[in-house]
């Protein structure tokens, strides 16, 4: 669960990136965050990850009050989250398998668990046959699916995706969002930032529109392909 309570962010440069934003994303929700460039979408994400702190107001994520969370406790917060970036951020010297297994290793997961969990999530994103490939041998869409598997592997409560389809072909973008939808149906909360109105219209759901640091619109709309 994510809750923003009258949150403002002013960067040290003096830019007011967010102004008195309040919003609540419940467990199991799927929400799109849209808005023009510079509106404050990434700032919102950075707050959830506690990369930055709110200048005003309180942010609560999965039961952590972020303004009270000590720096050395940040790993505990992040272990409840899965993150997908626009630029994939895979490690080029590691295979698909290693890129995913890496996440569990660095949080000190048992070896046995890693051995069963990693192939499972790789097959969930449909890349079982590419487990031994290196990122450069994959298409953009495939790389993003690896990133998705990586975000999924520690069984997070919330997956945050900042323009996950920004660097891949529109046709493949739908696949990624389909995958996210599937993950959401299994109970994981999803927050996805996107520029692509087609995708939003196609899938529908909760839309949070940010404009110049404020929430301009926050409603649930029906998608074109509503089940």
């Amino acid at each position, binding site marked *: 669960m994510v809750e923003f309570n009258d949150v403002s962010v002013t960067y040290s440069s003096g830019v007011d990136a967010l102004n008195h934003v309040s919003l609540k994303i419940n467990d199991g929700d799927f929400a799109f965050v849209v808005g023009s460039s510079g509106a404050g979408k990434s700032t919102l994400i950075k707050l959830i990850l506690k990369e930055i702190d709110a200048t005003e107001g309180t942010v609560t994520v999965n039961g952590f009050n972020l303004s009270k969370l000590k720096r050395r406790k940040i790993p505990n917060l*992040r272990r409840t*989250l899965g993150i997908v970036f626009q630029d994939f951020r895979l490690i080029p010297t590691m295979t698909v398998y290693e890129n995913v297994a890496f996440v569990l290793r*660095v*949080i000190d997961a048992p070896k046995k668990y890693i051995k069963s969990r990693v192939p499972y999530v790789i097959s969930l994103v449909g890349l079982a046959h590419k487990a031994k490939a290196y990122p450069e041998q994959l298409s953009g869409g495939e790389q993003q699916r690896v990133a998705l598997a990586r975000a999924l592997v*520690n069984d997070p409560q919330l997956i945050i995706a900042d323009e996950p389809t920004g660097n891949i072909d529109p046709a493949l973008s739908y696949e990624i969002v389909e995958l996210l939808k599937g993950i959401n149906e299994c109970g994981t909360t999803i927050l996805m930032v996107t520029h692509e109105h087609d995708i939003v219209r196609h899938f529908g759901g909760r839309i949070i529109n940010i404009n110049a640091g404020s929430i301009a619109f926050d409603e649930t709309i029906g998608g074109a392909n509503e089940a």
Partner: protein
Amino acid sequence: MKLSSVNYLVGKGIKSVWKNKMMSFASFCIMLVSLLMVGLSVLASININKIISGIEGKNEVIVVIKDGLTDEAVTSLETNIKDINNVDTVSFYSKEEAWESMIKNMSQAEKDLFQYTDGDNPLPDTYKVSVKDIEKMAETTNRMSTLEGVESVKASSEFADVLISIRNIFSVIAIAVVIALIIVCLVIISNTTRTSVFSRRKEINIMKYVGATNKFIKIPFQIEGTIIGLLAAVAAFILTMFVYRGVFNLFQGNYQLWSILGINSLYSFKSIFLPVAVAYLVAGAVIGAIGTTISTSKYVKV
């Protein structure tokens, strides 16, 4: 932390040493030179100390008797020496005795060489004088050198004084070198860490996002520094062994040196093997680990 994680972290550290071969090698060389300079200075100091304490323990003065003195003159000289307050015992050591003991301690090759000079003994007759109070050594030797029939007076404590000042110079240099080299080591390790942090920045970035603890992120770098430190320590130890043995043999082969200082005036490498090895390994590991701990906090902003 789990065993598999420990393996993982150590593996990362080792890989990192290899991946940044150039920087690792540079750190290795600097650490090696530093360890060697400090190690050899310390070894030189402890050996000089041993020589000094050996000499200081001897409250003995050698009075060299003028060549060609009559027997009466030699006997009256003995009485005159005994009359000096601080003198304890006086014993005559003839040139023949001196010659024999010298020949006895020689190697066969040296003996053969000395055969030619047989019959023409270049050594003088001497009195070995022991004093009661070493503190008054200088005064006593002065008195003796003014006596009739005395060629010269040799107190080994004079040599000890020279050695003490050499050792003091050594100590000052060693401390200055230690400080300078520790700084150099830290700087170079810091650069190595920066290079490896840079080459792994993507990984570190992802590690932060997925909730790796700071400790987990930093440990491979510290292991990297420690490994380099340990490698430098091993190399320093091996080089020290060769240098030390070389100097030791040179010393043992030099009759004049050990006849003054005594045959056991240096530590054999065997007797100092263990402490030297342990000191090098501990110093290498500690400098490596501390250096990288300082620099990882600087470069791994978590």
